[in-house]
């Protein structure tokens, strides 16, 4: 399979990504952070805020592969961390980076053009992200609420994120398609 990303002029990790694409991915992550902290923070499901940033990270990883997934995951997670007072900065970044990589690499095993795959990917990624964030935060000594509360939050986040995917994923995909450099083959 010749799936190289076009003729890269300068060899480098980000060489073939292009400014337009960096801008588009950055804008999507920013908007996700802003929407999650305003509109969605009020439109809670039984008091739980959906993690739109994660939905966008998974959508990007699913459409554009591990490199975009990892980058969006890191910066999206870091931005979320930086906006929280008295939390461990870098923890969400770490979790979302790993999620972006996993989704980006596992999507090649998904049946082509399946409408349900992104939804499953988001549901599964949300469960993993919620569990690993809680686990790491407790391990690192963050003051934590009860585990039953954590389980309830995780369950509701999975549900709410999954419900958001049919709206968020097509949007992310359309923007990503527009800014993808030519001559990149997709699986």
């Amino acid at each position, binding site marked *: 399979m010749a799936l190289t*990303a076009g003729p890269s002029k300068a060899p480098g990790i980000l060489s073939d990504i292009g400014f337009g694409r960096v801008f588009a991915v950055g804008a999507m992550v920013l908007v996700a952070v*802003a929407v999650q902290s305003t509109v969605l*923070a009020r439109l809670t499901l039984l008091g739980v*805020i959906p993690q739109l*940033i994660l939905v966008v990270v998974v959508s990007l990883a699913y459409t554009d592969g591990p490199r975009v997934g990892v980058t969006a995951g*890191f910066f999206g997670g870091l931005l979320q961390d930086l906006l929280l007072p008295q939390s461990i900065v*870098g923890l969400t*970044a770490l979790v979302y980076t790993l999620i972006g990589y996993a989704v980006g690499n596992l999507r090649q095993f998904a049946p082509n053009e399946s409408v349900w795959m992104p939804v499953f990917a988001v549901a599964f990624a949300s469960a993993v992200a919620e569990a690993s964030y809680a686990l790491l935060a407790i391990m690192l000594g963050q003051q934590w609420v009860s585990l039953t509360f954590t389980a309830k939050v995780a369950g509701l986040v999975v549900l709410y994120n999954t419900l958001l995917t049919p709206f968020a994923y097509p949007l992310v995909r359309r923007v990503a398609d527009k800014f993808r450099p030519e001559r990149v083959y997709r699986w």
Partner: protein
Amino acid sequence: MYRRAGRGRLLLLAFVALSIVVITLDFRQGDNGPLERAKEISSAIVTPIQRGLTAVFRPVGNFFSSVSELSSLRSENHELQASVESLQSEITEAKSLLNENARLRDLLDLDEAYPTLERVTATVISNAPANYKWAVTIDRGSADGITDDMPVIDPNGLVGKTTDVYAHTATVLLLIDPQACAKSRVVGTGFTGGVCGNGAQHALSLEFIDTDADVEVNDQVVTAGYDDGIFPSNIPVGQIVSVTGEEAASQQTIEVDPWVDFTALDFVQVIIERQARVTTEKVK
């Protein structure tokens, strides 16, 4: 294929390493580390978008809730008109009492009561975008005289304290956050303790109180401004809703239901005037 996957792995390693560096920095840094700068920058980038979204969507949310209340509005209007008139006279009375109170407090060298302290009114522009952190961002900052650890109230009582303060925005750690505590006093008894958050949907807990403290359900809890606590005294906090485990005197669990509705904070006030304390050596 191989090449792409390989590069993905390289990026993964780079960002994982970077995350771990950031986490380490976060644990080590003091109040002025590089992450504080990063926080300030990211807040400056996101805030304008948040402001826009809040300005657009909050009226929509309020509209939906007010449509359902339309029928009761007319009768409510009449009642309010009547109460405005009676309140007007009470205000005049209260003002003269306030003056007298201030004069007497001066004479007695007492702390100022919190309603007379200077404050700044702020609009809530966003909530913490996470489920394990209870905080809001307000549209006032150091340019308005706000600094770290200032008390934040709303008309119902204690909301929390300021934490990350930037030029034109500040973050308020809500009292329901597990990392928030306020020195408090049970009205009518002499008992003081700390009211601490347990996350949303859970009552606040009154901790560090005398193990044989004789408190009852429905007792009022207000802030206690002793020592170097940051809250002035007598800000309403909530009401005791349950007292359990009195038999085992070492472990008394007291639950406090807060007055403030933390799910619908639109406007808050930051008390920016520090009290001049006569009783403590350390002024915070």
